[in-house]
């Protein structure tokens, strides 16, 4: 690996007429997927890939290679030389990243080796046996990844980082009626995993899942959003805090820097170095990441700005990408939050959310994996999954209580590149949450 990276550094020097931006990644996974309390499949997979962008003035060409070698890379550059002068310019391009600090970040622990399949199977057997007396089975994934990345460019950027995230996602599903509850674990260090705690949290939820099932009518409800549910809403809202959204006219935060939009107890940041979470050190261009306040005491503070949009929009770049969103805890215990709801809902998780109008932050989506009725301060029923149609800005404005603890929520970007990210979220109470229909099913 390092020989190849040294070769890449040498190669860059041979093309002073261009600016080159190179990203080299060695990625492997041990990925166990299970259903009905048994193995579906276990995957071991290794991929080495290189991305390269060649800039000549304001003209650019990008390509990707798997299993790259220097000779093939030179051939690709030679190929690009034939036409790059004939491509139209990008008038908004100024320069590539110039954060020159040479750094190496990340622990060199390979969790794909450290946690073997035998250990994973033993843990799953124990969890499966724990839920079995309640007539539940477990479904989910147990993933360990190892990623070594290098970002190098002609401006002297030279970054390396290693990450080896772990994610255990367990859904307990009732054999009787498919009522589902979920428990997750995510970190870079499996020593932090406490199987008994995990099992106990899962079983507490399984017990609630045995409550009678009811249906709810559309209407506006007081709801407690569990950490996974509020996490997903925040991720959608923060699309609007990217400089790209600002540039394309889709940002709900346009002209709102330093404006108080939300209640004072709401503070949300991107904290890539928070060691409770799966950490990120650089953006895709090699810019060093730091904590960024996005909403501080209800005031919108900063856009997330990469090198390109920083230059284009004349904003200070920070490279933040929302990989580690932290919602600061409040002052209410979870029990007190439940007790204060007279007639409302607890929503564990969301499904298939989509924007109706990104600028207006209107979205629709559904609840999943545990929706419950709260009556006079107690959880009394399982509720069929529900559809909501809301404005995310209004959702945050309507937060009336924030739990005094926040929890690590791992999640994967499963659509193209497989990354494991995490957020740190408390439960929140929200008033006037708009339920627009019922699925009439679990």
């Amino acid at each position, binding site marked *: 690996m390092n020989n190849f990276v040294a070769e890449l550094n040498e190669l860059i020097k041979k093309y002073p007429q261009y600016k080159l931006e190179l990203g080299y990644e060695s990625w492997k996974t041990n990925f166990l997927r299970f259903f009905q309390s048994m193995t579906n499949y276990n995957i071991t997979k290794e991929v*080495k890939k290189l991305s390269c962008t060649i800039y000549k003035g304001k003209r650019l060409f990008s390509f990707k290679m798997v299993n790259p070698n220097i000779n093939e890379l030179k051939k690709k550059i030679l190929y690009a030389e034939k036409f790059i002068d004939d491509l139209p310019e990008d008038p908004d391009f100024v320069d590539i990243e110039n954060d020159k600090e040479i750094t190496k970040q990340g622990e060199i622990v390979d969790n794909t080796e450290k946690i073997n399949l035998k250990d994973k199977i033993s843990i799953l057997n124990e969890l499966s046996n724990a839920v079995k007396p309640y007539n539940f089975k477990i479904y989910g994934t147990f993933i360990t990844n190892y990623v070594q990345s290098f970002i190098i460019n002609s401006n002297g950027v030279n970054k390396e980082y290693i990450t080896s995230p772990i994610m255990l996602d367990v859904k307990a599903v009732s054999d009787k009626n498919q009522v589902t509850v979920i428990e997750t674990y995510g970190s870079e260090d499996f020593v932090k995993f406490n199987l008994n705690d995990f099992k106990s949290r899962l079983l507490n939820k399984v017990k609630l899942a045995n409550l009678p099932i009811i249906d709810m009518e559309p209407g506006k409800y007081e709801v407690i959003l569990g950490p996974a549910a509020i996490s997903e809403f925040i991720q959608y809202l923060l699309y609007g805090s990217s400089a790209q959204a600002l540039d394309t006219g889709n940002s709900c935060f346009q002209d709102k820097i330093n404006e108080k939009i939300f209640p004072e107890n709401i503070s949300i940041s991107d904290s890539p170095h928070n060691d409770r979470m799966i950490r990120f050190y650089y953006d895709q261009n090699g810019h060093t990441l730091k904590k960024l306040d996005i909403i501080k005491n209800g005031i919108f503070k900063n856009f997330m700005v990469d090198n390109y949009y920083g230059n284009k929009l004349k904003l200070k770049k920070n490279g933040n990408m929302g990989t580690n969103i932290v919602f600061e805890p409040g002052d209410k215990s979870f029990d007190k939050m439940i007790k204060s709801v007279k007639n409302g809902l607890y929503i564990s998780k969301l499904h*298939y959310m989509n924007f109706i109008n990104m600028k207006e932050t209107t979205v629709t989506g559904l609840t999943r994996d545990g929706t419950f009725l709260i009556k006079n301060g107690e959880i009394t029923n399982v509720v069929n999954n529900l559809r909501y149609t809301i404005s995310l800005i209004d959702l945050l404005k309507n937060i009336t209580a924030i739990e005094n603890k926040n929890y690590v929520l791992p999640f994967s970007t499963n659509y193209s590149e497989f990354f494991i990210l995490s957020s740190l979220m408390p439960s929140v109470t929200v008033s006037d949450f708009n339920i627009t229909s019922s699925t009439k099913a679990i």
Partner: protein
Amino acid sequence: MKELIKKIINKLNIPEIDFADVRFTKTDNEGIFFERGSLKSVSSSIGNTAIGIRVLINGTWGFAASSKVDESVVDKLIKNAMESAKEGSRFKWDKIKYKVVSPTIISYEFKPKEDPFEMDIEEKVNFVGNIAKKLTQNPKIVHSYAAVNFYRQYKMYANTEGTFVDTLLYDTSPVMFVMAAGKNGVQTRTFPGHMPGQRGGFEVLKKYRFEENSEKIVKEAVDLLDAPTVTEKKSDIIIVGGHLALQLHESVGHATEADRIFGMEISYAGKTFIKPEMIGDFRYGSDILNIYTDSSDKRAIGYNPVDDEGIPARRVDLIKNGKLVDLQTSRFTADKLGLKPSSNMKASDASDVPLIRMTNICIEPGEGTLKDLIKDTENGYLLDFTKTWSIDDNRNNFQFTTEIGWKIENGEIKHIVKEPTYYGITSEFWRSCDRICGPEEWNFYGTFNCGKGEPGQIMHLSHGVSPARFKNISMLPKE
């Protein structure tokens, strides 16, 4: 490569392994993206290789894959796959069994009229650039893009039953988009809509007639800024084009994937409201509704002569005269349900495990033209061009918003409406279908972006539809 694949199959033909297959893929992608008339990226990813080995031991799958493809990785991959299966079988109470399937040997090569990977980059860039420039002329258009993705994949599949298949396929997916801004917010228009993917090369890009449609979408986006919204809570709707394809995709396509019945996708994509006992009996739609899957149709993106576990391509009726009669199945799920495998197991590339995936799911055409259908509609809306889509994890409760709708009164289109939103329950919705247009209005609509599985896979697939009318559908007026 053929020799290497055969060598691997020989190594896997041992008594300890009940069944095994090997796939090799070499995938090429090229993308051109213009934003507000300026070229933002030309990207290419050529010759991406992958090999994947899947083994069935003790009724359990093990799978190992690598982007490096040569003899040096083979033994390690076989070892990893076998260990995964053996260790995984310690967490298993029901074994996967495969009924023997006769071997198939097929070679198929699609030849595009204009191979985009053999053309000069400048020619392709200029073509898209000309479209992009036309989108920027109106001052109310604050954002626009024009883009195209070209795709080519060579695949070899072999299994221990003697099946050997190799295919070379080309797909192209172009799109253009504009966003207009005014005092009432922003409105968007996209063309050709949500499912622009087609089997073919550069000729696909020409077929869509982007230049003449660019003026149309610019005008529509600007007009939408001041357009009224839907006010009714119930209305008849005619759904056309790519949006009907998406409605079919979400509420029939995914719902009839048999792996969802067994909870194999609960951890991510979700379940289905369909239960085994509903097959052959459940009224999914109205009497006029006939829906089938056909992986043997060479015209469309989902064509696949043999699926990724050795089942030859075939047409299977899913809904016949409104009744659910079959599902999209794998060999495992078909056996469990007493059905014949439908040839729907596919993986995005060789480094992915095959899953039940849609190929070409189509609504059989009915009769008449769209013009006739509009004329026959007293009061309602015509809807196309998806803006928002959302459906629950049982594929039962959906809500869709389109970018634009056209109000119909007394058989005539009167005016446009912005962001019309409708919602419903899958079977109630399809039972309300009272007319489907004829073959003259029937087309394929394809996507490159159907996500499923973990690690996630993106599948190319298509849907054949002609416009259809649905009666008394719930609408969501904008507050």
